[in-house]
């Protein structure tokens, strides 16, 4: 077993460490709202929808994360415009995601013949994180924290009682659009570390476990952040030890934590 100290000493692992720490901040702050406002599927879809765009960007030298952010914003805007609730897992969205994944893999394997890219984009990478990824994750964490501070009351009022919130004069549509856009961009920011298929390991799993443990919104954010950080670091260590991308171990850890908390808090009122 390798020494955990390596995480802090080896340069490439240090970057991964910082990346996951930054992501756990967004995961705590936004993850709470993803769970409360039922955006889990939306966050997964936002990640998957960017897959072909990321392949293209990777092949043509554009920074994938920047390209991904552009696609994510477009996706969020499209969902909000369609008015079709993001809770309505319509068939159209499902097919869109299948087409995105199929298109991406054809582009990667057959057009650009960069097969290794597929594994990296699908499940994340230990070694390939660079300064741009850190910068984007840092920016997302900062923006998410500020937005949650400023808009948290509005998001809560809208989630609790949409009609009432409207009557209070809150611009619920704008507030929700911002939430969708943030979640979509945050999902893309997590892709370098955990991959397109497992962004929910950052934005849903820690918050879902936290939801079972706390009874207030503020507590939800805090516990989700702590759990996300712990799962991210431990998952990173496992990825290093087993020589696998970070996404899968973090996802498995997150799911096990959810299972454990569900069993331990069984019967407790929420």
């Amino acid at each position: 077993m390798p020494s955990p100290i390596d995480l802090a000493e080896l340069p490439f692992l240090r970057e991964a460490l910082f990346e996951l720490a930054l992501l756990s901040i967004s995961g705590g702050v936004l993850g709470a709202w993803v769970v409360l406002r039922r955006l889990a599927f939306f966050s997964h879809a936002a990640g998957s929808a960017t897959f072909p765009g990321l392949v293209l960007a990777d092949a043509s030298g554009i920074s994938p994360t920047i390209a991904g952010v552009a696609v994510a914003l477009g996706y969020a805007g499209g969902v909000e415009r369609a008015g079709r609730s993001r809770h309505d897992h319509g068939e159209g969205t499902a097919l869109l995601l299948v087409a995105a994944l199929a298109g991406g893999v054809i582009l990667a394997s057959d057009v650009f013949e960069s097969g290794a890219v597929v594994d990296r984009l699908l499940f994340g990478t230990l070694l390939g994180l660079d300064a741009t990824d850190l910068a984007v994750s840092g920016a997302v964490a900062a923006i998410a924290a500020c937005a949650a501070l400023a808009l948290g009351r509005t998001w809560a009022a809208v989630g609790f009682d949409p009609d009432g919130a409207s009557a209070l004069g809150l611009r619920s549509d704008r507030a929700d659009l911002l939430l969708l856009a943030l979640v979509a961009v945050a999902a893309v920011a997590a892709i370098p570390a955990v991959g397109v298929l497992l962004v929910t390991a950052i934005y849903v799993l820690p918050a879902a476990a936290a939801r079972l443990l706390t009874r207030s919104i503020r507590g939800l954010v805090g516990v989700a952040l702590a759990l996300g950080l712990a799962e991210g670091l431990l998952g990173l260590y496992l990825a290093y030890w087993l020589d696998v991308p970070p996404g899968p171990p973090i996802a498995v850890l997150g799911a096990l934590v959810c299972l454990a908390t569900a069993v331990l808090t069984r019967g407790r009122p929420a």
Partner: protein
Amino acid sequence: MSGPAVSAEGLAAAYGDVRVLEQVSFSAEPGQSVCVLGPNGGGKTTLFRVLLGELEPLAGGVEVSGRPAYMAQTERTRLDFPVTALDVAVMGALARGRWWLPPSREERAAARAALERVGLGTEADVRFGELSGGQRQRALLARALVQDAPVLLLDEPLSGVDPASAALIGGVFDELRAEGRALLVASHDVESARSFDLVLCVNRRQVAFGPPAATLHRATLEATYGHELIVLDGQSAVTVQHHGHGH
């Protein structure tokens, strides 16, 4: 304050091409209470929507003092949301602007006072979803109180509420009227309408408007409720509710 607190003139409203409300004209002075009677789908909630500014009238106009406080039915709220009764009451302060700041001490104090007023002083930290039906209605009323609005729109505030809560809520209504606020209460209960200052009967169009003595006649009620009406011993009337037809 001069002039009516809330009024409508020749109001018509529609969803797309479907007209749901026609020829509504009424007015209420500060301190008056109006009972809005009508069957499901008859336009009560549409009227509230127009008064709240959420729906543009097709014709005619409305005038409302300030931004009305709205007390919706609790079925439309999420019971699994992790908010306490106090959190719900504090939401009323969002109407006063500065939504981007956390609740101030004054706002929290106002929320606690409102909870006391509706008899939930000791339940301030109880989760909304764990309150009883009547308590939830009172918490939503507290939210409306915190908003401190001159006009309150209340959508069936007493439906499914236990008698103790109903009495409490009724007492608060009287206090609000004494403070000079105007109340519009959508209701199914024809009997309770008699205790209001004014009654407005709507069934896709205005059937009648005026004091209870002048409006709560059999003819008016039949025009309002159609076959949903059951009349007992010639004087009092009971309406039959049809749930599930939309609102």
